[in-house]
C-alpha cells in the first residue's frame, strides 16, 4: 500500500531532482535538521517517497546522541506496545548494533546526508525557508523538520564547586573507571544506565532529585531496582546536591554536600557524573521565531497539530518536541513527512481518545475534542498536546446522576476529579450543609492528591454531570512536569483550606487576591517553621510531610502535638498578628504553602466584616486551646515522660501513621505469637518483625506497616497494585509484579519481597492435631517453588473478619493498634503508669 501510493504520488520532477550532489542554494521540498533517529526516519521516508530533501547534521557523523551513548549501551525499543511505522529499522540492541543498522540504512538507501552542516538561522515562511548554515551556505526548502534533539544543550550541575574536572556530564566507556566511588546524579535513563554500567567495578551512589525513578524506562527501572535490592549500588532519593567541595587535593577526593530527606549528608567520592538531561536550545529556536509554552527553561515549544510549531512549515519532532524516546521519534519522522505530503495519519491511540472525549464534547477531529477539553477545563490549558493525550488516556470519564455520591467524607481515595460537565455539591460536615458548589471546569480531590489524607468532604452530583477521574500517579507525573498546573492546584488547595478551616466567607475575588500572595515553602526534616515568640510569618498549610508543635516550658522543650499533612499551623498568628506561641518543626521533609500575615493584614484593613469574623474565630481557637492538655506542672515527671514519648513516637514516623502496631513491652512476653500468627495467615511470610524496631519507655515499635497518611510505598507502583481501602488500610493487590519500588520507598522497612506460598492448610481438627503432635503440616500444598516474588506488607488483615490477627493472637494483650488521635492520651496514660509502678 505504502509503496503504491509512494509511486503514484511522487512526481517525475521530484524523482529527477533527487541527486546526491548538492548545490548551494538549491531548493528542496524538505530540509531535515538533525540526523538523529527522527531525522533519519524522516529522511528515509522522504527518500522512499522520492521527495527532494536534505538531511543536515552539525557533527561529523550521523546520530550523535545515540553515538555518544556509553560504550556497549543497551538501547531499548520503548514503549513496547507502540508499533514501528517507519521503514528505518530499529530494534533493541547495543549502541553499536543500532548505529550499524542505521549507517547501513543510510548507505543502502543513499540518504542525502550533509555532515558538518550546523544550522544557524532559519528565515522565511512556509514554502520558502532559507536555512542558513555555519559555513554561510543557505539551503532553501519548502518545509523544515527540526529534529535536533536536546543534547546540544546539556543541563549542568549548577552548584558551587561543580566546575571541578571530575564533575563530568558524559560517560563514554565505563571500563575506564575502577575501584572508585562515583556519584551518579540523575534518575533518568542516562543516569540509571551509567550507574548500572559503573557498578561492577566501582562503588556507585545514585543521586536522584525525585523520590523515585519515575523518569526512566521500565526496563531500566527494573534493573536499577534489582541492583539496589542486591545492594550492588547505593542510592539517595529525594536528594539535591547543594555543593561540591574538594576535600583532599592529593587523592583528588571530592566531598559532595547533599540535602537528603534525613538532613544534610556529606558524601566522599572520586568522581561525579551528572546526567541531568538537557534543555531545548531556546535562543536558537527563539531566533527561528518559534514560541514556547512558558518562560520556564524546560518548557516545551508551542505545538500545533502534527508536530507543527508556532511557525507554519517548521515541524518539531523528537526530544525537542517532548518525545524523548527513539521509537517515538522514528514514528514522528515518518508521520511528519506524511503530513507534509498532505496525508494526515491518525495516531494510534486516536480511537480511544475519540471515544472518551465523545462522552462530553461534540467535535470532529480528536484535536478539536482535545481543544474543547482544554477550553472547558482551564487547568488543563497548561498541558501540551502530548500531555493532554496522556491525561485523557489515563483518566476515566464517568457520568453521575443528580444526588449520586462521588465519594464520602473520610474515605480514602487519591483520584483527582475534573468536572467536564454539570455541577457538584461539596458537603463538609455530617449534617449535609453544602459548603460549596463547583461547576464545569473546576476540579476537586486535590487534597487527597497532595496530602494522601482521607477525603475532607462528601461530594454529590448536583445535576447530571460528567467527571474526569484521573489516577494519582498520572496526576503526580503531570504536576511534576507542568509547573503551571502545580501552581494552580496549590492555589486552589490553599483557597479551599482557608475557606474550610478558617471558615471565612469571602467573595471569590477577595479570596483570589488573598491567595495570590501565597508561597510554597520547603523545610528539611528538623527545620524550624517558626519559633516560639517569633513574629509569625503567617499561616502554613502543610501540603506534604508533618510538623511537631512544641513549647518551652521551664527550660524544657515539650512536644505538645503533631500536625500532619492537610492541616495547618500558625492560624493564631494569622488571626492575631502577634508572636507565635509555640515552636513548629518539620518532622520529616515538609512542604507548606504560606499565606503571609502582611498579606492578610492588607485585606483586613479593607474589610471590616472580615475583621469581625477573624476576631470571633480567634476567640474560639483560644478557648479550645485552653481545653487542651498543657502540662500544668512543668517539673512533673509524668508529663515530661509522656512528652518525650510523643517525641519518640513522632520520630518513629508515627505521626504520619493512621494505624500502627505498638507493643507494650511491660506486657510482652516475647513469645512472637504475633509473628507466627501473621505468617500463618499470610502465606508463610510474616509482615511484622517483633524484635526489630526501637523501644522507649516500655513502648516498642515493631517493624510493621504504619499505614501512613501519605504512603511512601504508593508513590511509585508501576502496576498500581498498592491501594488504600476506604477504611484506610494500605494493601497490595495480586497485580504486584515484584519490582520492589515500594520496598525501597518505605522509610520504615516494613515491606519485603517474598515468593507467595499459597498453602492449602488442613483446617480440620485432625490435621491440626497431627501438626501439633509431630510439628509438621500433614497436608500442605505449596505451589511451584519458583512462584514469583511479590511485595508483601501488613494489610491489617482486612480480608479477615475479626481484625488484625497479631493483636488477637497476643496472649497478654501487649500488642495494640493505635491511631494518631490516641497518641497523646495514650502517652499520658503511660507516663502516669510509670509513676505508679
Amino acid at each position, binding site marked *: 500500500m505504502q509503496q503504491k501510493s509512494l509511486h503514484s504520488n511522487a512526481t517525475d520532477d521530484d524523482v529527477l531532482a533527487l541527486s546526491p550532489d548538492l548545490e548551494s542554494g538549491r531548493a528542496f521540498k524538505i530540509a531535515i535538521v538533525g540526523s538523529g533517529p527522527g531525522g533519519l526516519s524522516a529522511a528515509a521516508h522522504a527518500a522512499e517517497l522520492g521527495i527532494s530533501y536534505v538531511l543536515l547534521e552539525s557533527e561529523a557523523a550521523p546520530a550523535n546522541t545515540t553515538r555518544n551513548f556509553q560504550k556497549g549501551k543497551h538501547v531499548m525499543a520503548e514503549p513496547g506496545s507502540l508499533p514501528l511505522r517507519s521503514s528505518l529499522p530499529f530494534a533493541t540492541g547495543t549502541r553499536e548494533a543500532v548505529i550499524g543498522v542505521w549507517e547501513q540504512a543510510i548507505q543502502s538507501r543513499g540518504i542525502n546526508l550533509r555532515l558538518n552542516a550546523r544550522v544557524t538561522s532559519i528565515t522565511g515562511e512556509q514554502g520558502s525557508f532559507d536555512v542558513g548554515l555555519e559555513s554561510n551556505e543557505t539551503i532553501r526548502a519548502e518545509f523544515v523538520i527540526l529534529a535536533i534533539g536536546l543534547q546540544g544543550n546539556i543541563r549542568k550541575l549548577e552548584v558551587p564547586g561543580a566546575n571541578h574536572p571530575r564533575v563530568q556530564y558524559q560517560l563514554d566507556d565505563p571500563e575506564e573507571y575502577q575501584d572508585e566511588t562515583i556519584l551518579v546524579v540523575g534518575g533518568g535513563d542516562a543516569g540509571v544506565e551509567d550507574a548500572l554500567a559503573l557498578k561492577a567495578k566501582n562503588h556507585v551512589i545514585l543521586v536522584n532529585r525525585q523520590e523515585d525513578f519515575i523518569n526512566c524506562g521500565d526496563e531500566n527501572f527494573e534493573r536499577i531496582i534489582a541492583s539496589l535490592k542486591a545492594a550492588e549500588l547505593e542510592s539517595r532519593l529525594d536528594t539535591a546536591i547543594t555543593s561540591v567541595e574538594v576535600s583532599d587535593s592529593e587523592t583528588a577526593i571530592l566531598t559532595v554536600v547533599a540535602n537528603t530527606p534525613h538532613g544534610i549528608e556529606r558524601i566522599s567520592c572520586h568522581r561525579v557524573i551528572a546526567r541531568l538531561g538537557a534543555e531545548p536550545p531556546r535562543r536558537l529556536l527563539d531566533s527561528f521565531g518559534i514560541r514556547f509554552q512558558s518562560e520556564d527553561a524546560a518548557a516545551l515549544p508551542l505545538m500545533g497539530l502534527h508536530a507543527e510549531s508556532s511557525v507554519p512549515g517548521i515541524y518539531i519532532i523528537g526530544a525537542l518536541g517532548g518525545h524523548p524516546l527513539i521509537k517515538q521519534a522514528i514514528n514522528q519522522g515518518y508521520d511528519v513527512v506524511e503530513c507534509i505530503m498532505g496525508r494526515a495519519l491518525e495516531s494510534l491511540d486516536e480511537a480511544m481518545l475519540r471515544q472518551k472525549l465523545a462522552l462530553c464534547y461534540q467535535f470532529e477531529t480528536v484535536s478539536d475534542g482535545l481543544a474543547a477539553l482544554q477550553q472547558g477545563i482551564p487547568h488543563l490549558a497548561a498541558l501540551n498536546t502530548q500531555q493532554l493525550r496522556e491525561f485523557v488516556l489515563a483518566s476515566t470519564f464517568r457520568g453521575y446522576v443528580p444526588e449520586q455520591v462521588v465519594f464520602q467524607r473520610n474515605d480514602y481515595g487519591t483520584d483527582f476529579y475534573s468536572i467536564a460537565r454539570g455541577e457538584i455539591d461539596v458537603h463538609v460536615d455530617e449534617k449535609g450543609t453544602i459548603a460549596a458548589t463547583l461547576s464545569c471546569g473546576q476540579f476537586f480531590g486535590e487534597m487527597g492528591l497532595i496530602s494522601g489524607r482521607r477525603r475532607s468532604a462528601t461530594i454529590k452530583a448536583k445535576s447530571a454531570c460528567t467527571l474526569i477521574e484521573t489516577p494519582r500517579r498520572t496526576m503526580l507525573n503531570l504536576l511534576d512536569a507542568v509547573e503551571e498546573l502545580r501552581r494552580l492546584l496549590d492555589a486552589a488547595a490553599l483557597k479551599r483550606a482557608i475557606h474550610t478551616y478558617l471558615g471565612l466567607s469571602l467573595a471569590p475575588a477577595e479570596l483570589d487576591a488573598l491567595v495570590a500572595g501565597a508561597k510554597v515553602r520547603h523545610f528539611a526534616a528538623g527545620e524550624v517553621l517558626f519559633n516560639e515568640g517569633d513574629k509569625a510569618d503567617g499561616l502554613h498549610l502543610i501540603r506534604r510531610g508533618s510538623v511537631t508543635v512544641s513549647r518551652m516550658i521551664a527550660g524544657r522543650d515539650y512536644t505538645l502535638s503533631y500536625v500532619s499533612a492537610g492541616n495547618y499551623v500558625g492560624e493564631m498568628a494569622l488571626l492575631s498578628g502577634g508572636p507565635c506561641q509555640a515552636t513548629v518543626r518539620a518532622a520529616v521533609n515538609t512542604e507548606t504553602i504560606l499565606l503571609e500575615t502582611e498579606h492578610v493584614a492588607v485585606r483586613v484593613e479593607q474589610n471590616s466584616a472580615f475583621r469581625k469574623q477573624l476576631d470571633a474565630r480567634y476567640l474560639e481557637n483560644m478557648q479550645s486551646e485552653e481545653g487542651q492538655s498543657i502540662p500544668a506542672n512543668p517539673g512533673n515527671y509524668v508529663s515530661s515522660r509522656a512528652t518525650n514519648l510523643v517525641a519518640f513516637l513522632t520520630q518513629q514516623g508515627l505521626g504520619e501513621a493512621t494505624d500502627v502496631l505498638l507493643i*507494650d513491652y511491660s506486657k510482652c512476653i516475647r*513469645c512472637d505469637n504475633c509473628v507466627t500468627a*501473621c505468617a500463618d495467615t499470610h502465606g508463610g511470610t510474616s509482615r511484622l518483625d517483633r524484635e*526489630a524496631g526501637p523501644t522507649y519507655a516500655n513502648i516498642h515499635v515493631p517493624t510493621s506497616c504504619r499505614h501512613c497518611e501519605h504512603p511512601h510505598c504508593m508513590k511509585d507502583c508501576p502496576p498500581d497494585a498498592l491501594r488504600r481501602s476506604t477504611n484506610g488500610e494500605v494493601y497490595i493487590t495480586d497485580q504486584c509484579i515484584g519490582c520492589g519500588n515500594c520496598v525501597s520507598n518505605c522509610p520504615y522497612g516494613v515491606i519485603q519481597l517474598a515468593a507467595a506460598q499459597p498453602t492449602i492448610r488442613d483446617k480440620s481438627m485432625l490435621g*491440626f492435631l497431627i501438626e501439633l503432635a509431630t510439628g509438621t503440616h500433614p497436608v500442605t500444598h505449596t505451589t511451584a517453588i519458583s512462584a514469583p516474588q511479590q511485595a508483601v506488607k501488613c494489610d491489617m488483615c482486612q480480608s479477615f473478619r475479626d481484625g488484625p490477627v497479631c493483636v*488477637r*493472637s497476643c496472649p497478654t494483650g501487649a500488642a495494640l493498634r493505635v491511631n494518631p488521635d490516641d497518641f497523646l492520651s495514650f502517652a499520658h496514660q503511660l507516663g502516669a503508669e510509670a509513676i505508679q509502678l
Partner: protein
Amino acid sequence: MQRLTLLEYKNYRYLKPAAGLVALAVLAYLFHSPVLGPRGDTWLGYTLAVIGAAAVFILAWYGVVRRRIPVLAERRKMTPLTLLQEKNFQERRMNRVRFLRRRASTLQGWLSAHIYLGLATFVIVTLHSGFHFGWNIHTLTYALLIGVIVTGLYGVYAYLRFPRLMTDNLGGDSMSTLLADISELDQLARTNALRLPDEFDAIVQRSSRDTRITGGLLEQLRGRPRLCATRVGIDQLQQLNVALDPAQIQVFRDICSLLLRKESQLKRVRLELMYKSRLQIWLHVHVPLAIGLIAALFAHVTAVFFFW
C-alpha cells in the same frame, strides 16, 4: 484504651464465673455427706469429675487456640452472592457459629480464662478426690494436675513480672545492638592491646577468645556464667606487675575501661537471656505435664471403668 493485665482482663470477666464455680463446688461438698464419706464415686464426685475433666480439656484447648487463631481467621466474604446466601438459610447457623467464635477470638481473653479456670480446676479436682490419696493412677493424675497448675502459676508470675524487668534491663537497646557493641568493644580492646607488651596482649586476647555469652541451659537460667572470661581478664590485668611507660599506661587504662564496659554489656545480654529463658522454660514443663495429664486422665477413667 485497654491497658489491663491478664488478670484484670475485661474487669475480671473470667474471675467471676471461676469463683462462682468454686464456691458452688465447695458448698456442695460441705452439704453433701454420703454414708461412706466424700469420694470420687458419689454423685457429687462424678459431677465434679465431669466438670474437672471438661475443664482440663478446655484448658488444654488453649494450646490449640494459641496456634489456631490464625488458622481459624475467617475469610471475609464480600461478594454479593455470598451475602445473599448468608441472608437465606445459612444465616442463623452462621450467626451462631460466629457468635461463639467471636467471643473467644482474642487470645488474651483465652489466657485470662485459662488462668482462672486452671485455679478453679484445682479446687474442683481436689474436692473430687475427697482427699483420698494413694500410690495409684488416680493420685498420679491428681499430682500431674497439681504440677501443671504450679508451673502455670509460675508462668503467670513470669508473665506479669519479667517483661518489665526485661525492658528495664535493655532500655532502648536491642540484643543485636548490644552484641554489636560488645563485639566492637572487644575489637577495640584487642587492637589497643597490640600496643602493650606481650603479657598484656596475651591476657586480653585470651579473655576475648574465651568470652562466651552464655553456655548451657542452666547458665542461661542463672543469668551468669560460672567464670566470665572478661572478668578474669580484668582481674589478671590488674594483677600484672610489669613496668609500663606513660603512653602505655594510658593505653592500659583504656583497655581496662573497655573491658569493664564490655563486661557490663555482657551482663545485660546475659540478663536478657536469663529473663527470656525463664519466661520460656516453665512452658517446657507445663506443656508436657499437661499432655501427660490428659493421658493420665484417660488411664484414670479407664481404670475406674475397667474394674467398674
